[in-house]
């Protein structure tokens, strides 16, 4: 297997399927991909898991490092952690039917994210209103929701790490709740428990790539929405056609219900739409995310309090592992919001009490994130930069990618670093 695959923590490249066209080269925001011997290979340390290479590859040679539904079996208790993006895949279907479908697929518990999204919203509003007085964090604060954005900042804009809102993400709150209240009971019965994250993007790390001893307990597995969709839609259709809706016992309210407020989160702007923040923006798409981060680094947008970034266009429903067209999904969300309204269910005072206890404070040191990219490339000296300029003057500069690098500038840098040979440039060879 290892001969066929080159993988990072987030994506896998299947060499036998790769046609070597190199369409993935220029779309990689960290320029992590090079083509060698006509097959895509990747420089692992620079991958931030955005999935743009998966999106562009016509041969389907790139896939997410997620599992398929075949991992579900009887030897363990399966808990599904469901984000509202999943409901958006089923236009016209009530979220509760989607959750029932998951039950029929073999999940013993389905945890809906709505509650935890509300908690996050409330904690964020509180942090921002306190920050107006304390100035503890610099403006604009950046949403921590999209993990690709956070990794992009750690890799390309480390100066902006203090701008990332230090509030625990809803998915972390959700996993913590499950680990506190649900899992211990099963562990006491000596049952094995597996947490399944059902994701619209390849952003959850493949546990196989974590260093030994760092395996999370209980086992955590990432499933792509498109991995489970074919099975799930069959169950959902059956449930909708049946005379009687199957009944499953649920212990907690968050096992069954979804809200309009939460549905909004699937699309760009959904995070800030209902938040009580004076000046906020929502930006989506990889190119524009990078452009805005560059401008924030120049000192712009300090009059904005909060920016929601999503590297996928239109937000999470534009994620590369979704099963339904993003515009159809968006329309499904809008209909759902119209139907459910935007009311919140949790009591603000209760959340604020938890906030004061520090329950939402992310204790992750943002500066540690930069160490994610262990073998970061050495900074260039003036001398090396001069050599790069010289190489650039010799080659044509059309970014043709025939050499296997994403653009001429990167190729020149690879040459100067001794990682590529100048004669790989078609222009040099044919001169």
């Amino acid at each position, binding site marked *: 297997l290892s001969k066929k695959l080159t993988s990072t923590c987030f994506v896998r490249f299947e060499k036998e399927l790769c046609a070597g066209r190199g369409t993935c080269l220029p779309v990689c925001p960290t320029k992590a991909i090079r083509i060698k011997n006509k097959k895509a290979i990747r420089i692992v340390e620079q991958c931030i898991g955005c999935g743009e290479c998966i999106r562009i590859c016509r041969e389907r040679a790139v896939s997410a490092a997620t599992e398929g539904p075949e991992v579900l079996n009887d030897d363990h208790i399966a808990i599904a952690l469901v984000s509202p993006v999943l409901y958006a895949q089923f236009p016209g279907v009530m979220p509760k039917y989607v959750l029932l479908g998951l039950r029929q697929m073999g999940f013993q518990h389905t945890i809906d994210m709505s509650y935890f999204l509300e908690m996050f919203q409330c904690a964020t509003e509180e942090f921002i209103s306190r920050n107006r007085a304390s100035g503890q964090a610099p403006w604009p604060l950046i949403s921590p929701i999209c993990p690709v954005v956070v990794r992009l900042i750690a890799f390309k804009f480390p100066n902006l790490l203090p701008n990332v809102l230090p509030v625990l993400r809803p998915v972390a709150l959700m996993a913590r709740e499950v680990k506190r209240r649900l899992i211990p009971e099963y562990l006491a019965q000596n049952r094995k428990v597996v947490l399944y994250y059902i994701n619209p993007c390849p952003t959850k790390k493949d546990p196989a790539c974590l260093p030994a001893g760092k395996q999370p307990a209980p086992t955590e597995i990432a499933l792509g929405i498109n991995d489970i969709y074919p099975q799930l839609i069959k169950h959902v259709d059956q449930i909708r056609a049946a005379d009687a809706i199957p009944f499953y016992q649920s212990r907690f309210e968050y096992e069954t219900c979804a809200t309009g407020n939460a549905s909004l989160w699937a699309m760009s702007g959904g995070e800030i739409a209902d938040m009580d923040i004076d000046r906020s923006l929502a930006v989506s798409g990889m190119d524009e995310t990078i452009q805005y981060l560059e401008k924030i680094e120049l000192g712009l947008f300090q009059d904005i309090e909060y920016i929601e970034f999503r590297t996928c266009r239109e937000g999470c429903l534009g994620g590369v592992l979704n099963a339904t067209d993003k515009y159809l999904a968006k329309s499904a969300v809008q209909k759902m919001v119209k139907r459910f309204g935007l009311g919140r269910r949790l009591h603000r005072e209760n959340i604020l009490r938890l906030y004061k206890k520090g329950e939402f404070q992310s204790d992750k040191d943002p500066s540690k994130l930069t160490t994610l990219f262990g073998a970061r490339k050495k*900074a260039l000296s*003036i001398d090396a*930069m001069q050599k790069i300029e010289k190489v650039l003057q010799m080659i044509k500069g059309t970014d043709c990618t025939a050499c296997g690098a994403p653009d001429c500038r990167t190729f020149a840098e690879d040459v100067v670093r001794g990682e590529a040979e100048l004669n790989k440039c078609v222009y040099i060879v044919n001169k």
Partner: protein
Amino acid sequence: MPRLKKSYHIKARDFIGAGEASINVQNLLKSMDFDPRLIRRVAICGYEGEMNVVMHGGDGTMSIELDDKRLTLEISDDGPGIEDIALAMQAGYSTANDEHRRMGFGAGMGLPNMKKNSDRIQIESQKNNGTVVRMLFMIPEKGETD
């Protein structure tokens, strides 16, 4: 001593694309081994200068030249020039029009900000004869800052 020089074009009245030259300078410095605080100062000066060109100056150029010890950032344009440089250096003095102010510019802090963030600033300008703003930044020796 190895030296590096690069120039970037600034387009007149291009408010949407404004900042591109400064971002290019910033990205160049980020790929090299510079103190982030120095990069930030250069970027702020670059952006202020670039906005001045976009708003008042006509087409212009941003050039960066550096060696081990010093970095020079030069922003030049072929615009109307500055009549009274001493007045223009005063905080709050601005010749911005309503259009500029609607976009949030024109606080009269551009040149003062550039003076504050650079180690030395030199302005050459004559009425109707363009402007050259040259800023010098000393590069701290390795190990000197932390």
